[in-house]
């Protein structure tokens, strides 16, 4: 697979190719799959992964010590003349079989670590996470602002180079793996180590 032409940016074609490779890898590891679709002049890769996480009630009410289940669906999207992917995701609190998205506060409390929370909340008007109508699905989804993606990927590259590693063999599939870790990591989405290229 050819190297990226213009890191930290990724073209639509590179993104699509990376999704396909990543999907093959996820499937081999039995972790999930990537469904690729071309819609509205863009390319969308939907990573389907269900993870059940036990966490405690965080709203301050007296509670029984029940475990809650949260369900993460990650949707990755890139628009045609955008050079950076955007991560769309949702969080469904338990007992919401009707798939009702959590509040922004619940997203921060359940998906972000204390370390990153303040940083995420401090950018923009009300933080780096916003809601929008998903461009394909049409229902409310959260997304991570792409404004800092280029810088974050650049920082990752810098650390790698400081560590003596170059950018040879840096394919689109690698990019996506890193990207999910960098951007997705901020909201608790990551690929297991078996998926690291």
């Amino acid at each position, binding site marked *: 697979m050819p190297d990226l032409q213009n890191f930290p940016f990724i073209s639509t074609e590179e993104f699509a190719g990376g999704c396909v490779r990543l999907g093959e890898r996820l499937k081999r590891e039995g972790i999930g799959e990537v469904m690729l679709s071309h819609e*509205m*002049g863009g390319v969308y890769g939907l990573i389907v992964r269900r993870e059940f996480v036990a966490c405690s009630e965080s709203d301050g009410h007296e509670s029984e010590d029940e475990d809650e289940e949260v369900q993460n669906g990650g949707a990755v999207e890139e*628009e*045609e*003349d*955008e*050079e950076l992917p955007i991560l769309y995701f949702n969080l469904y609190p338990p007992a919401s079989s*009707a*798939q*009702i*998205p959590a*509040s*922004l*506060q619940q997203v921060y409390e359940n998906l972000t670590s204390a370390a990153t929370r303040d940083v995420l909340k401090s950018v*923009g*008007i*009300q933080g780096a996470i*916003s*809601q*929008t*109508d998903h*461009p394909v699905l*049409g*229902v*409310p989804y959260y997304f991570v*602002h792409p*404004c800092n993606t280029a810088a974050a990927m650049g920082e990752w590259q810098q650390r790698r180079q400081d560590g003596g590693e170059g950018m040879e063999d840096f394919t689109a599939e690698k990019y996506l793996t890193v990207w999910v870790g960098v951007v997705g990591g901020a909201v608790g989405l990551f690929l297991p180590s078996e998926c690291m290229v």
Partner: protein
Amino acid sequence: METSDPKAIRRAVWSGSIPCKILLDPGESRVFDASDPYYVIIPRIAYLPFFAERVCSFFRPFVIDPEVAKPESAWFEFESVPMKWHWPVGLLYDLFTGRDPAANNVEEDDEHLLPWTLIVHFRDYPTKYLMRLEGPATCHDSWMNTVKEADHVRNGSAKAVMSLSKAESTKLWDSLQSHDFDQFWSVNDKLVSVQARNIPLRLYIPSAPRVVQQPVPPNLPSQEPQTVGTALRTLLPELFPSQRVAVLARPVVHGVVVAMNTPLLELMREAVYPDGFLHISLAMMS
């Protein structure tokens, strides 16, 4: 004939408004359906959250549970459909009343008599379909995201918007809320008047409704200008088999049918919504 005011169209767009009549959901009212209606004229380019505080104050004496009557819990419904608060009010009206401004049938027009009647609810916010309003900043945040997206479509990056000074950025939002044309365009003109790579365009098809957004360049490969007709034919060929004549649906912007041969770039510069997009709703022809 020369227009004396080169900003005439922008001013006309800015001053368009929808007279609204807001009723309280009878199920939430102490007096069932006998609470007063709230009459308000809403600018086409404004957003419902701008008026939520006023609506709340007006209806608080009538609601069964006043604790619930907060601006963040208010949602508006038209004919059983929750109205998306991040869409401009003029777009909501044009799309959901489905009125065809060019229809000759007067009786049909009577169905869409103004004022536009909406029902306000404070309970049971439909979070599956409507984005949440965490507070006043949410509407600002959402609008700003759209402004950045439009910039990205125009230029391939959102640098122009990101490099506005804090004062300019604040001016944009404040002047939108206070409905100040001169203040708003003193900042917005430079964002919109660029040599755009693509036109920020969104098409709204009634019923679902379905939103179509695709990058559309200002010129065709032949170097001829992209028109409303050529764009519609490219994006929705099943609804626009001809790029010259509207056959199945008419494109409506700010309540007015747009001629199919209108150059898209010019239309964007004159009739763009404050969020940077050309929102075009389709009126199905009977």
